[in-house]
């Protein structure tokens, strides 16, 4: 199986690469549309701001490629936010693969960024969430989030509920960092590797 990590020039590419390596998968890292299209599975990492990340995808002429993928695509953190229609962070149009909106977090009086280990709830039956329970902790670092909607596969609560995992058709995304979430995070990556459409 060929897994390709889209080389967004973002910071967490090595962490994501190493996380798959620990699962026995030697992923490619590429910004070549042909390589990405030919992959069995594609991973979109991301750290930084939506505005910069979209600009980088556009520079590399990758937006059409990502939008036309038929194989499983997983976005992580900012990479997940890029899968949506629009991000309020810099008011930027995103890939529009999942009809959702990225908004500033409504954390009530809780501190932002939402940084640290938190639990999930309303976990769906989607293959990506196999083996997850409400007692599992995963690692988040973000100030913007997708509101809970039809496409949420799991929610997290921090002041208010937001979508921790989203999915539609071949496209899924995790707001938390599976590559930094210990065994629980590794489970999500393993589920992605095993996911058959």
């Amino acid at each position, binding site marked *: 199986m060929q897994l390709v990590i889209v080389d967004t020039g973002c910071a967490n590419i090595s962490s994501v690469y190493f996380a798959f390596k620990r699962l026995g998968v030697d992923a490619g890292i590429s910004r070549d549309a042909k390589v990405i299209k030919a992959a069995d599975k594609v991973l979109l990492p991301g750290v*930084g701001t939506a505005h910069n990340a979209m600009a980088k995808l556009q520079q590399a002429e990758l937006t059409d490629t990502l939008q036309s993928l038929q194989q499983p695509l997983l976005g992580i953190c900012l990479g997940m936010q890029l899968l949506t229609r629009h991000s309020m962070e810099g008011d930027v149009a995103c890939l529009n693969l999942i009809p959702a909106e990225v908004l500033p977090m409504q954390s009530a009086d809780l501190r932002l*960024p939402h940084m*640290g280990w938190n639990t999930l709830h309303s976990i769906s039956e989607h293959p990506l969430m196999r083996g997850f329970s409400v007692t599992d902790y995963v690692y988040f670092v973000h100030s913007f989030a997708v509101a809970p909607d039809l496409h949420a596969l799991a929610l997290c609560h921090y002041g208010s509920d937001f979508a921790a995992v989203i999915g539609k058709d071949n496209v899924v995304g995790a707001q938390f960092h599976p590559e930094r979430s210990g065994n629980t995070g590794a489970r999500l990556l393993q589920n992605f590797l095993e996911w058959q459409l």
Partner: protein
Amino acid sequence: MLAKRLIPCLDVRDGKVVKGVQFRNHEIIGDIVPLAQRYAQAGADELVFYDITASSDGRVVDKSWVRRIAEVIDIPFCVAGGIKTVADAAKILEMGADKISVNSPALARPELINELNHHFGQQCVVVGIDSFFDVVSGQYQVYQFTGDESRTQKTQWLTRDWVAEVLKRGAGEIVLNCMNQDGVRQGYDIAQLKSIRDICTVPLIASGGAGTMAHFSDVFNQADVDGALAASVFHKGIIEIAALKAKLIADGISIRP
């Protein structure tokens, strides 16, 4: 519910983990990668690596150990020490660190915080602050170059003012190291942390003074910090992370088991 974080801090000198008392007399604790791995497996929520020589002797420091850590560690980690420019930070983040922490270079050139925020986002930017209580003036003051005793110096900043300044410039997290408490294991400086907590709108990490499990309980309950950092109690096996977590959970503190 968001868990409070337990953060072993590994002071690094020439790729080895060291620990001193009140920033002095460093002794070698062990090799960095196996130690990091051991802490991750033991249940640490995050790790911080301080390259303590970097800021104070001005040389180019070999940071290749960052990549070796990223290969084996599946929890977040932050690298501090000698990061003076956006390019320095980019290199460390590319090697797989999740956050970078700046201290002395931010005091020398506060715009560094704005630049790091702009390039990498607020979530990557931690500001470490070494704060010392001056008995004569009755004030907490910020110190610089604390990795090297001969160069350690008081800055113009009162700790409260510097905290406000770094927040304004876009820090995403603050690690407040209470120097009077560092390495002596007499408990965190609750009074100071509480007073900084009131003005700190981003995650605040307590550092300096952990000696017993009760000290962790106290700092979470009384100063409402987001995380507690400690070194010697973990390195010397005085406190086991699993036992500490069990106690904190029993004390009603939100902790990742």
